[in-house]
């Protein structure tokens, strides 16, 4: 197998006396979709935040493209190509698609050769191109995002990550707020990211999504990784047993 693009080794994160992430080794290879699964409080989000720089792990090391990015600032990690798409998407819904793809990195042109002004036409065209590449069609790019559907907004967030040459996309429950047709579209987007050789870490509670797109399932429980299952060997039942903790202990699946 190729070298991992992302490698977290021995990562631990504590909150007071609570061990949120416990000595975790986690790697992602180019072009693979890794599902990160686990019950609420299993440590998925904390692990992701240790990677994206939101949290600083107490122990361990995170490497991206062979470089140590442990304890780097979130903005720096983003600029290196790790794009996290949160549930709330971090979009400005009062602005149009072009403005959102270029949020904080607006294209400017010089008015009368001196005054820099925002170049909305170029931004809209570039955004349109990025959406086309992902095979997404939004009727009017002049529409404010507030008037777009949840799936369309998700698509804008993904298009933004793509446009800025994300090398690793982390998605936190991307289909949670969507209707069924839109869920399918988002899954298709994840596949097209993989086809573009861009790895995806997918946090999801929706077993259907995971089975549909993931190449590998990584299951966390109580801060530790308890299973790492290739798609070929995975079944919904096996995954659920690992999530609730009955697979390794031989306990009954009915807990709680």
């Amino acid at each position: 197998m190729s070298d991992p693009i992302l490698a977290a080794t021995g990562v631990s994160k504590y909150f007071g006396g609570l061990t949120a992430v416990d000595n975790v080794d986690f790697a992602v290879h180019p072009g693979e979709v890794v599902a990160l699964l686990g019950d609420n409080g299993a440590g998925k989000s904390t692990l992701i935040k240790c990677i994206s720089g939101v949290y600083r792990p107490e122990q361990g090391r995170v490497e991206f493209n062979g470089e140590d990015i442990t304890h780097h600032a979130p903005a720096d990690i983003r600029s290196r190509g790790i794009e996290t798409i949160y549930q709330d998407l971090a979009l400005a819904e009062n602005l149009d698609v072009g403005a959102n793809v270029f949020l904080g990195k607006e294209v400017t042109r010089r008015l009368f050769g001196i005054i820099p002004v925002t170049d909305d036409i170029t931004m809209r065209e570039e955004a349109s191109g990025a959406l086309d590449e992902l095979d997404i069609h939004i009727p009017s790019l002049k529409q404010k995002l507030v008037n777009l559907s949840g799936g369309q907004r998700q698509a804008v967030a993904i298009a933004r990550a793509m446009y800025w040459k994300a090398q690793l996309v982390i998605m936190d429950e991307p289909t949670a707020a969507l209707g069924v047709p839109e869920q399918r579209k988002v899954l298709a987007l994840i596949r097209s990211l993989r086809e573009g050789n861009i790895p995806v870490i997918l946090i999801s509670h929706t077993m259907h999504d995971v089975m549909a797109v993931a190449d590998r399932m990584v299951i966390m429980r109580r801060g530790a990784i308890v299973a790492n299952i290739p798609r070929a060997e995975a079944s919904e039942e096996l995954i659920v047993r690992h999530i609730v903790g009955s697979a390794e202990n031989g306990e009954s699946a009915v807990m709680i």
Partner: protein
Amino acid sequence: MAENNPQARTQSLSFINPRTIEVLTKSWSYLFLLGLVIYFSVTGTGFFSVRNFASILTTSTLIMLMSIGQTYVVITAGIDLSIGWTVGLSSVTTARVMRDLADSGNDIAYAMLIGVFAGLLVALIPGLVNGVLVARIKVPPFIATLGMFGIVRGAAFLLTDGQQVVRGLSAELREALRSIGNGSLLYYIPDDGFHWFALPPDLEPQQLRLVSQLLPYPVIITALVVVIFAFILARTKFGRHTYVIGGSEEAALRSGINVGRHLIIIYVICGFTAGIAGVLHLFRFTAGAPQAGEAALLSSVAAVVIGGTNLFGGEGDIMGAVVGSLIIAVLQTGLVILNIDSIWQFIVVGVVIIIAVLVNQLQAALERLQANV
């Protein structure tokens, strides 16, 4: 994803063109202003005249200048309640500096120039403090600027030793102030013609009554400020980031916008345009008055809202505030000309504010309907 959503197709074929709705709901305030002007012109004697329009424009400058900075603040989902007193602080400071410099034997022009600088500079202080409180210490804008309301009010009255005006402005200084504050770049006298900068010295009293000021200096100055800040908001990266912060502070932060610094600059801008208003007030009325902008504060917020700026942030523009200010000024003048008790202006402005909010909500609802979300 419209192709997966047959309903969206049917909707987009519906007879109402979303652009039409958008244009109507966005331009209702322009139409309302036009309607008011036509109404008062038809019913009020003397309303429809160049002289009166120049006077309305001059009246509107105070509210308009304040509403420019306020628009920036409101777009970021904030509000600045302190600028009414910032106007006064600026007016009083300018008057005192001019007086003291002129009295100690300095050239009048020099005293005025330094006074103006001092007045503009002092207006930045409450803005800066507001900005730091809101952006760094996360005090809600309403509370931070309400506190500043009291502080600036007190400071302005301290500078006049508790008096209603700054005492002791020399006649010479007042005349110099008046020549700008009540002056015009271009005058028109019927049966006589146009005059630049100043009136001919030998005018008959009845001729003097007919003089029209075509380009009053306060209007020119205000127009310049409008153009500059409208341009910054609509066309520059700084303006765009203002909308991003108003739309989602979280999105702004994650996209690398320095939200804290941006907010501080915006509150400083708000203080700055109030400072210009205060300096102009002094030039127009030749008296440094702490309460110069007191009544105009709520009018400036009203102008911003009437102009379509969303109090929850993210939407609005300077032209809206300009139109809102003009509506208020036209109402003030029109009601006086119709001999209606000027108290009615409060009621009418109140009704217009409520209409404005309703139209904004209608617009949002219609947009959602059109987009079929």
